[in-house]
């Protein structure tokens, strides 16, 4: 409750929530605002925004409605961000928790694996995964999750390392409780707040990674994602720059919203920081 109040008192967190909510409404309501296939031919190609009242944001080089793609793209981008972040958080928390809780050989082994992942630039790894497993929207999302977990694992491990020696954890050991109880019920809830905050960063990066893939035309071309739209606009960038700029602004706003929410969560879940402001 206290955390929720602190969250609602912070203006950046509120602005971030409003932006995210708007994107969410765009995504959920896409079929209602723009029924039909957003990738279908809608009119004469490359109409500037405002030129034709039927297409308030204009059309792209194939004559598809940019506004429709923008709305449907919101759903795809958010879904990719959310699912990829969940995958990264699950892998990262599991590995970090085991490494931090048991320490010793388990820690050494799991951390070497983590470092192996971290030493590769994650976009490069993503390209390899997509090249090997194909570029349907499912594989792209899973691949983004797979390249994003190492920082989550490190953060979780650090939290576990300090928490596992606390008296309340020792007290539970003396009570004869199992390791599973200690990890899941005692340590994890206390270790989670910084991980949740970091998840907002992962989400922002996931959306960007997908856009970057799409820009290189390596993402799924059959879904109306923002990245695909930017990639399509590349060919007409010098004359009809709005084709790339409009989805670019959408990505910018979404990332901004996610970051602001993350910042707000951080202040709310970390009382020492919040009171110092």
């Amino acid at each position, binding site marked *: 409750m206290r955390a929720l109040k602190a969250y609602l008192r912070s203006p950046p967190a509120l602005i971030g929530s409003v932006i995210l909510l708007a994107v969410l409404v765009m995504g959920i309501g896409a079929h209602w605002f723009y029924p039909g296939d957003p990738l279908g031919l809608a009119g004469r190609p490359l109409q500037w925004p405002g030129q034709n009242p039927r297409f308030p944001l204009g059309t792209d080089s194939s004559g598809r409605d940019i506004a429709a793609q923008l709305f449907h793209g919101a759903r795809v981008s958010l879904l990719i961000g959310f699912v990829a972040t969940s995958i990264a958080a699950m892998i990262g928390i599991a590995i970090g928790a085991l490494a931090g809780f048991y320490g010793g050989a388990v820690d050494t082994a799991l951390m070497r694996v983590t470092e192996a992942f971290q030493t590769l630039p994650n976009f490069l790894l993503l390209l390899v995964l997509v090249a090997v497993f194909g570029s349907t929207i499912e594989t792209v999302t899973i691949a983004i999750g797979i390249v994003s977990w190492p920082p989550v694992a490190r953060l979780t491990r650090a939290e576990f390392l300090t928490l596992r020696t*606390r*008296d*309340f954890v*020792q*007290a*539970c*050991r*003396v*009570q*004869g*409780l*199992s390791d599973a*109880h200690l990890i899941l*019920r*005692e340590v994890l*809830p*206390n270790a989670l707040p910084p991980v949740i905050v970091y998840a907002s960063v992962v989400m922002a990066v996931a959306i960007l990674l997908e856009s970057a893939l799409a820009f290189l035309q390596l993402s799924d071309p059959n879904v109306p994602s923002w990245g695909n739209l930017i990639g399509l606009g590349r060919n007409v960038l010098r004359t009809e720059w709005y084709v790339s700029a409009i989805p670019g602004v959408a990505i910018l706003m979404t990332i901004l919203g996610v970051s602001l929410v993350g910042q707000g969560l951080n202040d709310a879940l970390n009382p020492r920081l919040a*009171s*110092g402001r």
Partner: protein
Amino acid sequence: MTRLLVEHLTIRLPRGADRENAIEDVSLSVAAGEILCVVGESGSGKSVTASAVMGLLAPGLAITAGRMALSGEELRGKSSEQWRSIRGRRIAMVFQEPMTALNPLMTVGEQIGEMWRVHLGLDAKEAARRAVAALREVSLPDPEGALRAYPHELSGGQRQRVMIAMALALEPEVLICDEPTTALDVTTQAQVLALIKDLQRRHGTAVMFITHDFGVVAEIADRVAVMRLGRVVEQGTAREVLTNPRHDYTRALLAAVPGLHAPPPRALAEEAVLEVRALTKTYASRGLFRRRKPVRALDAVSVTLRRGSTLAVVGESGSGKSTLARCVVGLLGADEGEVVIAGARLPPDRRAASRLVQMVFQDPYASLNPRRRAGAQVAQGPIAAGTPRAQAMAEARELFVLVGLDPESVDRFPHEFSGGQRQRIGIARALAMKPQVLVADEPVSALDVSVQAQVLALLRELQERLGLSILFITHDLRVAAQLCDEVAVMRGGVVEETGRIGEVFAAPRSAYTRSLIEAIPGRALFGA
């Protein structure tokens, strides 16, 4: 001549705190060559008063009324620039924790020398010369060697001597000591108190000494101010306040200070419920670059706890008493020797061991999970051992009643309880497993004196009702005398002396035990 004057000072707390003002209408004065002890329990506002006088109020606190003056010069409304020239030079402070108050990356010599270089602009050579003299004055054994040492290479008492040397380096008019001996062992505390008293007499410094311990007050104070909930409830000379207190609160606090008289000895059962046999534990040096000498925390320690009695394990820090407690409950594995409970060796399996021995921890704030309900934390042990959930929760409610808590509070979270109440939850949690032996590791040392007395009374009552056998770890001989039947005195991992507590404290056989008893502050007043 009045050096420090505080008149009708009121400091407001930020909104949403448990009371409106941190301190209210506080008036104090300290004359040259005088020691004023400000005594109070936690939350009494004594540390806020000290930080106001140093111009170091925490953000969110604001002075709303009153004045403060240093040798007649008004302190309220000074800019941060002006404060900086006052702090260190005219008002100095000694903190509670000497390790965190010193910079770990600078040698002692550099840190003391910095005082003269910054405030007086002396060169490094002259600063070093003065630093040696200052360290000699605080009776450090090897002043030249200490100059080159880093803080972690000194003991706690030595670090506190360095802090005092730094504080007195510029001959300040006022010295503020915030619980300077609370983190130290009794024998070291006695030495540091004697040192502070000696130095202030020689320099004629005015000292404001903040403490929660009436024993320390009896040792050092010229005058005493007793604070409670932000107000000064009583002020007077040390003799007046200590021997003839006028306010009820002072009287209650003084009555709560335990004496060293052991209650008359009880008849003890012959049967041993816990036997520790030749237990040895060595902390080995680990790592490639840090080759340290292995530390022998326990060296062939043997003690016996009789059924239904309490055995005190007393000793200073580093004596191995906490290691012993952790080995007995199975949190640490011993290298050699064995722990035998009710005739059988302590099993390595956690669940089997949990029915034999339980532990009450020192810090009531750290020993409860902040994110789980109090009742669930008490009931989880029995549930894991196979008791049905509903029955375990019903038992938890009964245990809450037993330790003097409202049974309806099982659904509350730990932060809704006070320190003393949390320690009661800790005791209930240990009792829930119905153990043969209860290990209490400094269970009252983090609590205020009045709360301490209540928790000790609870333990005594529980022992009578349930026939508990308690291994009671403590550094405080007075607390041990209150509760325990027998005592084992530990030093450097070895048991120095064991016996009935009354006999050991009345006629100690070992010189170490005697020095511990003699170092207890305020012995003359509270009896030994």
